[in-house]
């Protein structure tokens, strides 16, 4: 079963999903992405400045989602591609994020491989296209 995200909930996260807007903790200086109410690093800072992340990073870990394992919102993609890679990317500003990897190299994905964020359709539900970021080999 897929994790349904309502349109208003998706809408609230548009700046972070479309252009990686995160927040720098004014207390410890670490970058939180996605934004939090309290800094996840120092557990004390609650005031932040907005920062737009570069989208550059490296592959920290990855897996391949086979057709049968795809959540329903990705079923059409799985039908078309057979399987697709999902990566944990360590961004150069520090945070680790999870996303799909597009155009994987023919020789396979490697840990530490440099990647950059690209703007893609994540899935479509209720006739509404959910755009967001994926990664591509840099």
């Amino acid at each position, binding site marked *: 079963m897929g994790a349904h995200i309502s349109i208003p909930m998706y809408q609230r996260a548009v700046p972070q999903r*479309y*252009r990686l807007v995160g927040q720098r903790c004014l207390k410890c200086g670490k970058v939180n992405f996605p934004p939090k109410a309290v800094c996840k690093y120092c557990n004390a800072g609650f005031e932040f400045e907005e920062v737009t992340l570069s989208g550059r990073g490296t592959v920290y870990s990855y897996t391949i989602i086979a057709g049968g394992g795809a959540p329903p919102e990705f079923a059409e*993609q799985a039908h*078309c*591609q057979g399987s697709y890679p999902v990566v944990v990317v360590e961004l150069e500003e520090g945070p680790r994020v999870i996303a799909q990897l597009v155009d994987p190299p023919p020789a396979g994905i490697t840990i530490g491989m440099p990647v950059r964020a690209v*703007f*893609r359709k994540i899935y479509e539900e209720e006739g509404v*296209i959910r*755009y967001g970021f994926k990664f591509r080999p840099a």
Partner: protein
Amino acid sequence: MSISVVSYGVYLPFLRLRREEYVNALGSCSADIKEKTVMDVDEDTMTMAVEAARKAVAGLDLERVGVLTLASTSYPYQEKVMAGTIVEALGLRKNILTGHHGSSTLAGTEAFLSAAGLLVGSGEKYALVIVSDAPVAGASAEMEHSFGAAACAFVLAADEQGLELEGFYSCVTESLGLRFRPAGEKEVRDIGVRTYSNQAYNETVGAAVKGLLNKLGQKPAGYRHVILHQNDVRTTVALAKKLGFGDEQIQEGLVYGQVGDTGACSSLLGLCRVLEKTVPGDKILVGSYGAGGASQALSFKLNCRLPGRSESFQVLLEDKKYISYTHYLKLKRSI
């Protein structure tokens, strides 16, 4: 006030379909392409638009972008403000004048000229023009064989050195049955009579180009490059020659053979390619076309070199993965 292009960006999808795939699957290919660009399952004209625009605005003060115009014959929604997606994805300011152009492949230069007009009228510093297109026809339609996908974006500036827009000229006529899509349908069609469609193309584009040369008191020989809308290469080259241009002026701007028919992008994508081979003082002539029908001819002069881009057009053409015709049909949601 002068209007100049000060930077630009190009996006080509990674996937390519070779002409031989059509020949192997269907016995023939009606398009004289070598290969064409194909959007992946998670791409549409908006995702391509964002990628091209991000390259064009790199290093620009986004607070000074006060105009945004878009062009596509194939937006992912038939009704919705598409500029909203762009503004959020790029982080543009919300007080921005917008223009959405569509309904024919003329949309590309329409968006370009309306951005120039809005820039003059508003007193803003920069305008962003994004042309992103991926025309769609049914798998059984012959015209489908050439349909590719691409996006290009231009930053226009008021009173700044760059690729200056020297003048433009338009020709609009009624021509029936050529590349049309009735309301509510997803796929374009035409009546399939090539001599008839070529005649309309030649007359309309020819009139716009001749009108522009007359208006500016210019001769074909005064241009380093000419780029006309590319439905197929033979017709484009024949018309350019008939208008008095030579091979060396025509060849650099031909992108059709490697990307296919990119609709509203066609002539502007050719412009992006020749810009890499242009030196200050060179003039460029662009002629767009939309069936039904109209053409806009634009005259440019390069005053100073545009900022270098991280990837040349050639690098984009070589960054690719070939797919099979079966995979292509899956991407088209035909099977």
